[in-house]
């Protein structure tokens, strides 16, 4: 049977490593994803991800299931592609400002030209709605 435990602080049995529930809430990623952004894009694994959209070469939209409380959450990410393609992962605010559920990312090569990445990784930290 499912149960709910209401508690302010978790501490190990030796009274060490005391952690407030607020720290656990704030310290856990609210969403993450690893997907192949080359060809027909495909998620490898994710948490709280609703969908990924291919907007064109090196241009993706990630939509999460449970919304964030505001648009001030942190985006951390990295992208890679084989051979010599050194790709950045950018959240282009001017192109598409993030919403509480949708973020758009691009993977440009170092010369600024968009390239599809075989490994796109994003994690979101912030407040859930």
């Amino acid at each position, binding site marked *: *049977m*499912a*149960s709910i*435990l*209401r*508690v*302010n*602080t*978790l*501490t*190990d*049995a030796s*009274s060490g490593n*005391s952690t407030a*529930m607020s720290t*656990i*809430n*704030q310290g*856990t*990623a*609210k969403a*993450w*994803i*690893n997907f192949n952004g080359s060809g027909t894009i495909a998620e*490898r*694994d*994710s*948490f*709280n991800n609703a969908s990924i959209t291919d907007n064109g070469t090196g241009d993706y939209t990630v939509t999460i299931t*449970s*919304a964030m*409380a505001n648009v001030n959450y942190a985006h*951390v*990410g*990295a*992208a*890679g*592609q*084989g*051979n*010599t393609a*050194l*790709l*950045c992962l950018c959240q282009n605010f001017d192109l598409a400002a993030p919403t509480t559920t949708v973020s758009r990312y691009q993977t440009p090569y*170092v010369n600024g030209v968009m390239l599809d990445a*075989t*490994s796109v*990784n*994003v*994690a979101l930290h912030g*407040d*859930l*709605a």
Partner: protein
Amino acid sequence: MASQLKVDTLTGVTTAGSIDVTGEGNSTTTNLQQGLAKSWVNFNGTGTIAARDSFNASLTDGGTGDYVLNFSNVMSDANYSVTGSSSVLIGNFETMFVPNFKPPGTETASTTSAFQFAVLRPSTTQPYDVPYVYVQVHGDLA
């Protein structure tokens, strides 16, 4: 009234590896296990590489700007998410963290116990050692 729970291990009732936590807005739950980083490290990538602090991670130096992160507790598959960044102490050298990339230009595959990553200088596309490298991993533990 404030309360404190003393416990060494938390286990879900319905599913042992799944515990929900109420989110900050009090209207949504998030999954504790899925949200937790399964590994992280802050290390000096110059000279004899050395972790300043870490969790579930040991490092192998594969050469200039070329590193492997090894897990102590392995992942359940190789589909985990790797994010990271890097920086230099002084100067204007830009840096780039690239997962699954072995210099000078080979794509590498993650495994349940380790993955390759590189730190490169974008303007030259060459790998180089930097003093500050930060990595975190999200995914499913075995």
